[in-house]
Structures are given as structure tokens and as C-alpha cells.
């Protein structure tokens, strides 16, 4: 996209309008990342603004990589800083983040019918309670696993991009994703968001043995 490259080049040379063009282009993506990482709209907005300020500051030194990756790396590091500072001040964190109002409901088991693995993922929308429950599940993951899972499965980045954003190597990203999915799976199954695969699996087994 030559237009974007032109704007990036201008922004590097200190053109604020060009930079703001980039802000408008990427703010939804950055905000979404921050929102899934911090699970709180206000913190996410702060982190997003902070990320763009940092990006503006570092803009003259930007070179030779995907702008999106570079920007998401700044945002991710900012979110991780916020998460770390929350852990240092646990009293404050209880008010400002984590399980929001109504999260108790979200922890209740949800109807299994809410999610059917045979349905195309793009073809249906999750119910809001399900979304809230998944967000709580993300919050329960260790920071590095949550980061990897948000980047790859929620944001749709490739493993390579996620590795570049987090500064980890590919193998590390893979194993973080692996562990994060397992934990998430357990969490969602306990709440009935993900159906227990056992019955489906056994049905499939029966049909196989019936055929033979």
C-alpha cells in the first residue's frame, strides 16, 4: 500500500497530520488489542492513547519492518506494563479491572447450544455473556500466554507476526499458544461454553465401528 508508506515516511520526518492518518487507520486494531489484554474500556483507551504517543515519539527511529507489527509491539508492551503495575497494587486493581459487574453471571454455566463446533465461526455471533466469560478466561491466563492467544486467535495474527510483536521466538509462541488453548479449553468446558467433546467423540466412534 503505497499510500500508507507515503504517510509513514512523512510521519517519520515529523509530519503530525501524516501520523494522525496512521492513527485513524490503526486505532481500532490497537484499541481492540488493549481491550482484550486489559479487559476494561477505560484502561484500554488510556493504553491506546499511550501507545500512539510512544509511537509518535519513536517514529523517527522506525524503519525496515511492518508498521502494524511495530505498532502492535508498542501497544503490547504498554499493556504488559499496565498488567504488571496492577499486580504491584492489587487493592487498586480490584476496583479498576478484572471481573466487571455481572461477571458472576458470566461464570455461571451457559447453554451448550451456544456454541456448536460444526458451525462456521464467521457464521454466528457469540452471546454477550459468552463473550464476557471468554474475556474472564483470558484474564485468568498468565500474561505471556494471554498475549500470545489474543494476538493469534483473537486478533488473527500469524505465529510469525506474534513472535515479532512479543520478541519471542517461534517455538516459544507455539508453546504459549498451545498451553493457553488448553487452559482456555478447560475453563470454557467447565462453564459449558465449549461442549464436552467426549460424547461427540464417542458418537463418532460408534459410527465408525458400526461401519466396520
Amino acid at each position, binding site marked *: 500500500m503505497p499510500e500508507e508508506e507515503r504517510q509513514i515516511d512523512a510521519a517519520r520526518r515529523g509530519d*503530525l497530520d501524516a*501520523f*494522525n492518518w496512521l*492513527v*485513524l487507520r490503526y*486505532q*481500532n486494531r*490497537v*484499541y*481492540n488489542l488493549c*481491550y*482484550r489484554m486489559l479487559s476494561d*474500556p477505560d484502561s484500554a*483507551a488510556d493504553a*491506546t*492513547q499511550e501507545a*500512539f*504517543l*510512544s509511537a*509518535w*515519539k519513536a517514529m523517527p*527511529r522506525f524503519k525496515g519492518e511492518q508498521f502494524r507489527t511495530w505498532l502492535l509491539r508498542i501497544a503490547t508492551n504498554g499493556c504488559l506494563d499496565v498488567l504488571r503495575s496492577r499486580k504491584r497494587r492489587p487493592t487498586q486493581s480490584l476496583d479498576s479491572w478484572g471481573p466487571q459487574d455481572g461477571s458472576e453471571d458470566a461464570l455461571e454455566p451457559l447453554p451448550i447450544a451456544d*456454541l456448536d*463446533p460444526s*458451525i462456521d*465461526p*464467521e457464521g*454466528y*455471533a*457469540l452471546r454477550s455473556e*459468552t*463473550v464476557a466469560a*471468554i*474475556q474472564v478466561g483470558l484474564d485468568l491466563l498468565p500474561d505471556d500466554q494471554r498475549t500470545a*492467544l489474543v494476538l493469534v*486467535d*483473537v486478533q*488473527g495474527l500469524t*505465529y510469525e507476526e506474534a513472535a515479532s510483536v512479543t520478541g519471542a521466538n517461534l517455538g516459544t509462541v*507455539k508453546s504459549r*499458544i*498451545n498451553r493457553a*488453548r*488448553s487452559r*482456555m*479449553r478447560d475453563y*470454557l*468446558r467447565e462453564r459449558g*461454553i*465449549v*461442549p*464436552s*467433546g*467426549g460424547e*461427540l*467423540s*464417542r458418537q*463418532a*466412534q460408534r459410527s*465408525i465401528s458400526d461401519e466396520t
Partner: protein
Amino acid sequence: MSKGYENNPINGSEHVREQLSDYMDGLLTAGERAAVRAHMDGCVDCRADYIELRATQQALRSMPAVAAPRAFTLTPEMARQARKVSLLERIFSHGNAPKLATGSVVAFLVLFLVMANSNFTGPQSSAALMAQPSAKQAPTQGLSEAAPVSPNDRSSESPDASAAQAQSTSTSAAPSAGGSASGTSPEEPTIAAGAAGDSSANSQTTTSGLTDGTASPPNAEITNSENSSPTTTTMKVPSSEPDNPTTTYALTAPTSPNDNTSPTAASDSSTGWIALQVGLLALGLALAVGAYIAWRRV
């Protein structure tokens, strides 16, 4: 979930739990893929795992995108504030690392020379000290113009110059000073010093604003010109001074040798001598650390 896992050896193949995530993302080789699929055909548990894992991924992928609540564009004011860099950040910027390192090397060099001199001949031969670094710094200009200028300076400035040996060495120092700028004798030491500190001049200018280290070179000048009588020691000590302002740390270094040596006679000079060495050591170390810090910053 692990129930029956152990006593369910299907096809004699191992369970593929660990590979399911990669399998899902198509990260396995063709052979591995086939093996996983073959295993899952017979293994209820691994298939169940896979079904759940797929559902988990779908749930995550279906997380709705949230719209940014507002525009995050920067105002000119925000942009200006963000770009403001503190003085410290500017000093320890990545680009300054070579200058800081050079300053450190110079400080250690001077320290080495000071120590070498104090060991052999004591404080008195200070002129030699000054001679060496300056000669080192400006060898080219010094040689040609050395002869005519130096004898004059010598005589007018320090009639009671200590040792013959010191004098001989100091003549080599003087030329470089005279060659570099003015011919007036009282200023000579400072000029020579300036030449000595030249290599670190850049870092000097950037850092000097931070502390009152800048105040010391002028002081040194004044004391020199006023009491022309004291031995070459007096002049020598200030001469090494301009190196000191290079850092922000070594606050003690610029002031203490000055106070000790210049106003009083050579009797106090040994303490000043030690202070100078300690100061130079601290300066050199501080600059080295500073250079390292600056280097690490990107």
C-alpha cells in the same frame, strides 16, 4: 478427563494431545498430520480433545471487535509534549556513547599519566604531566612552531620553574598550546588543557550545563594568571581539569584539586594529588558506565 486415557492404546500409537494445537493451525508436516489423523480415527479421547480445542479456537475467533470509543489522534500540543526529551536522556542517548567512551579513555589516560608521574618524581614535576597529554593531542601543529614560541612563554610565566627536567618536558607542552591559539603566556595552560580535552570536547559541551562543573575552568584560569609565582604544579593541576567537567558525576573532582593546590604552596599538593587521582578514577569509571548505558539505549 484423563479417565481411561492410559488403558486406551489405539493402533499402538501414542496420544497426540500435544500436537493438536499445531495440527489445528496446519503447522505439522504432511507425515505428522497423517499420523495425528490416523491416531484420532481410533482414539476417542484425543478426538474429544480436538473437538474441544477447535471449539475453543472458534470461540476466541468469534470475539466481536469493539469500536474505538473516540479518535486517538494527537493534538500538536500532545505531540510536542511527547517529543520533549529530558537533559539526561539527551546526554545518554545512543549517539553519545562514543563520545562518553572517548571521555572515559581520556580520563584514564590522564590518570595513568598522573600516577606514573607521581610515582617517579612526585608532585613537583607536574609540568611534564601537562606536557604529555597535550603533546599527544596536537603533535602536528606543535612540532613546527614549537621552537620560536616556547622559550618566551617559559621565561615570562614561570621564572622559578622547578626542575630542569620538568622544564625540558614542559617546553614540548608549550608549543602545542601556542600553536593552537593565542600567544599570551598566562592563558597558556588553559589552552593547552583545552587541546588535551579536545577529543572529549563534544561530550563536554553537552554535559557541562548540568552541573556547575563549568565553573572550574574559569577558576583555574584566574588562579593561574594571578599567582604566577607558584611552581608549575599549580598550573598543571588546573590543566588536567577541563577533562573533569566532562561528566556530571565527578563533582568532587573539579573542585577539590583546585582548592588544594592553586592558592597554597606545594606542601598541600600531595593531598590534592590524591584527590585528583581519585577524581580521575571516578570520572573515568562514571564515563565508562555512562557510555555503556548510552550504548544500550536504542
